């Protein structure tokens, strides 16, 4: 039950979805199973929320260090959940979009989720600058190639690059930095990315096969 059933489910669903691509009458079945997958995905969100609550309520119960911040998480969670599930302040009826402008849910998104998430990522601008100063060294030939390519792209993607190299005649225009940046993107970058893509593509295909055939079982965890 613990191992054989999951292995059978994986084999059955995986094979069905592959076969449904090639046999049109089975397309409908493939769509149904994909819909099942989409519905289970929502339960995965519930699992995530449930797990978050479990972790933070345990922290609160045990009065762990910084338990006060767990209160923030729990209160924020329930406020957002109530605003969304009950569609508080939604201008339409129950079938209206949960994210309709003016609803409490959308207001909380615009003024809490949006600033928090975008600023979290904006921090990376500072860290990448710091890393450029401290760690980006031309230590050897490979690192130098990387550095030069990065330089050309950084310069070529701004008007500054054109200002610096506008004097280069049209018959040598590939040497103008913006054009050089375009050439790098369209040729060596494309070649490198394609090699990576083919490698990953083959990896995904072989891993999918291993999973479907039950050779790859790590996703089942151990039996303890």
């Amino acid at each position, binding site marked *: 039950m613990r191992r054989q059933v999951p292995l059978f489910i994986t084999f059955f669903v995986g094979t069905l979805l592959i076969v449904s691509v090639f046999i049109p009458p089975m397309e409908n079945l493939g769509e149904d199973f*994909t819909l099942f997958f989409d*519905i289970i995905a929502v339960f995965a969100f519930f699992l995530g929320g449930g797990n978050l609550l479990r972790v933070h309520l345990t922290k609160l119960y045990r009065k762990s260090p910084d338990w006060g911040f767990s209160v923030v998480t729990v209160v924020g969670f329930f406020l957002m959940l109530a605003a969304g599930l009950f569609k508080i302040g939604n201008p339409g009826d129950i079938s209206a*979009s949960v*994210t309709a402008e003016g609803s409490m849910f959308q207001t909380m998104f615009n003024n809490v989720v949006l600033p928090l998430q*975008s600023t979290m990522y904006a921090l990376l601008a500072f860290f990448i*600058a710091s890393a450029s100063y401290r760690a980006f060294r031309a230590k050897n030939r490979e690192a130098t190639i990387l550095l030069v390519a990065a330089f050309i792209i950084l310069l070529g993607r*701004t*008007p500054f690059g054109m200002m610096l190299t506008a004097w280069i005649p049209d018959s040598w*225009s590939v040497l*103008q930095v913006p054009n050089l940046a375009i050439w790098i993107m369209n040729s060596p970058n494309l070649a490198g990315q394609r090699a990576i893509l083919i490698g990953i593509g083959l990896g995904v295909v072989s891993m999918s096969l291993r999973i479907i055939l039950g050779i790859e079982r790590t996703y089942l965890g151990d039996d303890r």
Partner: protein
Amino acid sequence: MIPFEPIRLFAFGGFNVPIVISLLIIGGGMLWLLIRSLKAKEVDRRIVFVFIFAAVSAPLLFEITFDETATPIVKGVFEKIENMPERSRIVIAFDFDPAMAPEVQPMANAVIRHALAKNHRLIFISLWATGQALMDKTISEIIPAEFPQKQDGIDYVSLGYKAGNEGVLNVIVSNVKKMFPTDVNGVPLTDIAIFNGVRSMKDVDMVMAVGGGKPGPKEWVLFVGDAPGGPPVAVGVAAVVAPQMYPYYPKQVLGILGGIKGAAEYESELLHNYPRFAEQDTPGLRMMGPQTLAHVVIMAFIIFGNLAFFIGGRHKEKRL
């Protein structure tokens, strides 16, 4: 070569004290950093942070802007929308979150404006929950104010978000109604004029996938664009994933709008062809000022770091 004409190099026109002072401060600071680096003295990371903050803030506050010219990879998308017959159906996918929005939202806005100005019909869809919130925000900000004659259900429709990542695409590529029985407001798809004659994504004329994560533009190419009979797909992607999309161009994608530079190029093309949008905000173009100065500062950091590395003799240290 790429035609390039900086029409508004420095928008402040002539001598401007705040700009000159801020540039002097940044320049002076960089000089101090250079000297310190040459002496192989450590610089606190917070000082580096201050430089980046200043390099981004100054052009933003003093509104330094540049003109852009669309490169062929961006122009391909613009021309496709420009040359499609009126009333073509374009799917716009909002597969992003607020973290990516500053980069890709300007692309979505520009494409929406362009398509509606060309009298095309738009179908909004999202594979990210956050995408639906941003989509509703965008629709309510742009359409009623700039295109008051456009009607929900006739000229545009929002299908909203569905959970299931690429699973959603696997269904809509053969049957849209099965995945989206109604639009985001609960109106059955059978009652929506745009969907007359549309059974699957193969019946739309183009997909503009805007995003940068997973699921996102790549999944639209794999599951929809490359499906037998699939529609042409254009992508607008965050800069981080833009290089990864190049292998698909031009066979599998019409064009790529990569990062804020791609957005700025599209906005510029739109402004040159549609003067009616001159009054609208163009965040892509506006952001290229801070972008330029920040790139210069980061390049200076790399040079200084390397100077300190080589002059300080650390390159001779034995590496493990």
